[in-house]
């Protein structure tokens, strides 16, 4: 049975809606369709996965595609990497000047800053989609005990590497940008590397865990040339710093 909707979005794009709620199952369907179209539909210039949708931008002047058939094929093929999404550990220095909203979040939830850190770093988060700003991963789902609304007024500039929370989600500002999320920490990793392929290492369906680090470790990673310019160190993929 067909359980998706194809909606025209201007003459050169379609929005394929694959569910109505944020869930891991829907993220899998979204990524299956995005991967399939990326690999099998040459008329597609770009594919933008959202929480429950895939936006396909096609080359102007190209033929209409049988999107229902394409979607059906994609869903029966499944995601490119079935089941085996990658696990990434992101080191974070929480609180202080790096996480100026940590204590605000703690006081709203009647906890200590250390409790917020413990809860935030105790679980894996799924990347649902990337967007808002370049390389910003929307991660779910935040433990209810530390959920917190956005700041009442956004900051004019949030530094690159900042880790924020908002409602049911957490995310990372890969590039500096204005932002309204509660900033609780910062990673020293250089997340956006324009010279590398791909310029952003993680992708939807990957799992991210945050590892609390102290200031000397933060500085050491920040000053480590190989981490900042070359490939990320092995421990990122193997459960974090020992």
């Amino acid at each position, binding site marked *: 049975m067909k359980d998706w909707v194809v909606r025209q979005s201007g*003459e050169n794009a379609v929005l394929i809606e694959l569910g109505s709620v944020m869930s891991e199952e829907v993220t899998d369907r979204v990524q299956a369709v995005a991967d399939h179209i990326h690999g099998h539909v040459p008329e597609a210039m770009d594919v*933008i996965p*959202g*929480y429950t949708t895939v936006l396909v931008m096609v080359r102007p002047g190209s033929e209409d595609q049988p999107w229902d058939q394409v979607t059906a094929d994609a869903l029966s093929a499944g995601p490119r990497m079935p089941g085996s999404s990658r696990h990434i550990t992101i080191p974070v220095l929480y609180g202080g000047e790096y996480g100026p909203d940590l204590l605000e979040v703690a006081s709203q939830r009647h906890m200590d800053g250390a409790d917020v850190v413990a809860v935030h770093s105790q679980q894996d988060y799924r990347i649902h989609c990337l967007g808002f700003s370049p390389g910003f991963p929307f991660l779910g789902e935040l433990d209810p005990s530390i959920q917190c609304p956005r700041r009442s007024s956004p900051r004019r500039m949030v530094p690159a590497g900042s880790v924020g929370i908002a409602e049911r989600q957490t995310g990372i500002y890969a590039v500096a940008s204005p932002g309204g999320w509660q900033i609780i920490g910062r990673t020293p990793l250089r997340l956006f590397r324009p010279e590398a392929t791909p*310029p952003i290492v993680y992708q939807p369906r990957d799992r991210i865990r945050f590892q609390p680090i102290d200031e000397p470790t933060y500085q050491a990673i920040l000053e480590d040339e190989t981490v900042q310019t070359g490939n990320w160190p092995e421990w990122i993929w193997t459960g974090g710093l020992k």
Partner: protein
Amino acid sequence: MMRVLRAGPQSVIQDLGRYGYQPLGFSSGGAADTAAHRWANLLAGNPPEAATVEMMLQGAEFQFNCGTWVAVTGAKSVKVGNENLPGWCAFWVQAAETVRVEDFQGVYAYLAVQGGIAVDPVMGSRSTDLVAGVGGFMGRPLKAGDDIPTGAVLAEAGWNRSQIRRPSHLPQLGTGDIRILPGPRQHLMNSRDWQEFLAAAYTVGTDSNRMGIRLKGPIRPHSLPSVLSEGMAPGSIEMTPDGSPLILLPSRGTLGGYPVIAVVVSADLSRAAQCKPGTAVRFRLISVDEARSLWRDQMQKIAEEAVEWHDRCPSGPEESHCESRILRAPLPGVIYFRPNPESQPFKRENDTLNTEDVLALIEVMKTFQEVTSPVEARIFSRYLVEEGSVVKEGQPIIEWFDAETKEGVR
């Protein structure tokens, strides 16, 4: 190589955009007015994807270190050395000569150089992504003193300065309604709101920029839900709960959460991008087939265009914003008379005005533009508008006296 002498409010290097990175959150970007960008390249003898300089709102000036062909589109006039030439033409520039682009028709003008702007591509494109801080020239807007690499000039002997290249038919700068298609979330707005939306005259807000055009209008839609963040195609019209629609340009954020009730057709998106703050905008629904044929026609015209040679004759005398002792606003926006709220005003009664003295600031499209004195050795009289008010383009803002006249006034 080309040196930036004046960058104007915001000059950035652009091409037709960066594709393949939108799943990671990088907008496709590229020229805001792709039609004018394509025309500039055509006239300069470049392929459409060559990089150009996109200038915003007013005067930018460049100097070339070797002879080359240069084309300017989107402006009514261009000053080459001391000579005035019309816009929408290509001309031969000699080494050390300056090119000043002025008198913009809309928001953006384009300058193409033979061989293209030769910065290194980043992630497959030379376009400047100001959000990610990459591409173009060091990932930022151009500044005075920047030396911009340009492509190789086909060194053909005998270029002379007596001729310019113009299109056989000047491109029609469309006016009238912006044509739209129903968007993917059209069903979230009820039929009465749709009727009002199509009947309404919207005004382009001063807080518009390369990412999107903010519109102010009379209607407030009934209970419009938000959606989970989803992909946004260029041209999407996001309807906000307070009834201020946002037309997304190619440098938009890739994901958005307001419902897209309609999408501007590709053939009209460049025209929408060129609407200055204060412009009135109306929308008209057409069919997908019409939208596609409009786009085909637009591309066909550029493809078939034969560039013709014309005798190079200077255009009429340069128009001045300054007439009969009144200085008019060069652009629309919010006007200020001091550099910051704590400071003294730039000028007080009987102060001397010298060329390039800053007289006011106009806040438009999220930038502050200096209004400078066009005259030398004159006497400031008064500001003609309230500080902090919104001025229209061409509205009188400052009064001054000729030095002799002032004596007479006393």
